[in-house]
């Protein structure tokens, strides 16, 4: 049991350390490529999003690598409107 928990804690720390390293690069260089609304954004904003980037960094890393930007939300009306239903 102790070994399992120690391994899980180590993996969580590794994930967090990678996330923190990514987050620093992302808020400096990548954030405005992924989300145009972040262009010229304040330093306070960049610091404020760091905890979330640390937690969800694989999502943003993939988006940055693929050159994708902010997704458009989907709901029943939007799907019908853009799916040629008319």
């Amino acid at each position, binding site marked *: 049991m102790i070994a399992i928990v120690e391994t899980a804690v180590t993996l969580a720390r590794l994930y967090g350390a990678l996330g923190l390293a990514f987050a620093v690069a992302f808020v400096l260089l990548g954030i405005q490529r992924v989300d145009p609304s972040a*262009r*010229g954004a304040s330093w306070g*904003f960049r610091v404020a999003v760091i905890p979330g980037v640390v937690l969800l960094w694989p999502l943003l890393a993939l988006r940055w690598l693929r050159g994708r930007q902010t997704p458009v939300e*989907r709901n029943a009306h939007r799907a019908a409107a853009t799916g040629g239903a008319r």
Partner: protein
Amino acid sequence: MSVSYKAVQWNRQKLVYDAVLLAALGTYLVGFHQLAPRLDPNVEPMNLRMRAFGSAAFLLLHVVLSIGPLCRIDRRFLPLLYNRRHMGVVLCGLALYHADLALTWYHAYGNLEPVVSLFVSNPAVGSVARFPFEWLGAGALAILVLMAATSHDFWLANLTAPTWKALHMGVYAAYALLVGHVALGALQTNTHPGLTAGVVLGALWILGVHLVAAHRERAADTPATAGADGWVEVCAVGEIPEDRARVVFAGGERIAVFRYDGRLSALSAVCQHQNGPLGEGRIVDGLVTCPWHGFQYRPDCGAAPEPFTEKLPTFDLALRQGRVWVNPRPHPPGTPVEPLPVPGAPGGEAA
């Protein structure tokens, strides 16, 4: 959401909201530190602080969970919803400090790392009554941290509102875990009946307001019956108050039909910011305004005014024998639709 981000878009309302929140919290914490030692004279100062912050977080979670359904029941609660995310971040801070104190108080002086000790010190996993309540608290804390960390509008835009909302529905899992955490933790060591009654009453309150709100919502989400041509009847034209909307559920979502300046326009009633209930909003300065955070859209095209870029699907309307009908097949977001004149109304057509 579509102009350059700031850490916090401060305004007077948010400053007042946060000041009241912090003042109430400070009063509770000071009051707890004054009263609790009288009830339990042997309590250690650190343990007292741990209980104060843990109970403050648990109480604040009740407030956070009550705001949504209360706004559904009575619009006068809407100001509480306006800055609810700050309340969530404060709640997370209280819970983190409680956890830090617990790790230090119970787990910092053994052979194991405190975090490892937290998860292995109580091995009674197979027991209901002695189940490691620390695991439940840690699970709830993880959810609260994830929610606080993704509370900025950047995350709304980058996860999309439906995903963001689904993620933040995790607050209910956090609440369930915390009820277990308190029931198997604090209530086992402090058997005062008032404490047990408080937890039970709190759970009944949360359940009750959600049931009442859900009952009201169910009526709004009953799909309307379509006519032979697929169009859906909304109501008599006179039933739509000036600068307000009537909502009909069609095409898998709510459609809001707004009346303004003697005209009618229909939009998808799902605000692009947090998916707020746009149909419960009103026309302010000629713009449809969401009741939750004030996001605005032009009623005739569903587009937010410059420099914002949010757009909603629009719908065709028709008047048949004095009743309003809507075509539930939406136009792409931001598509202009000629407003339908209201006969006899100023700005509309002659009756």
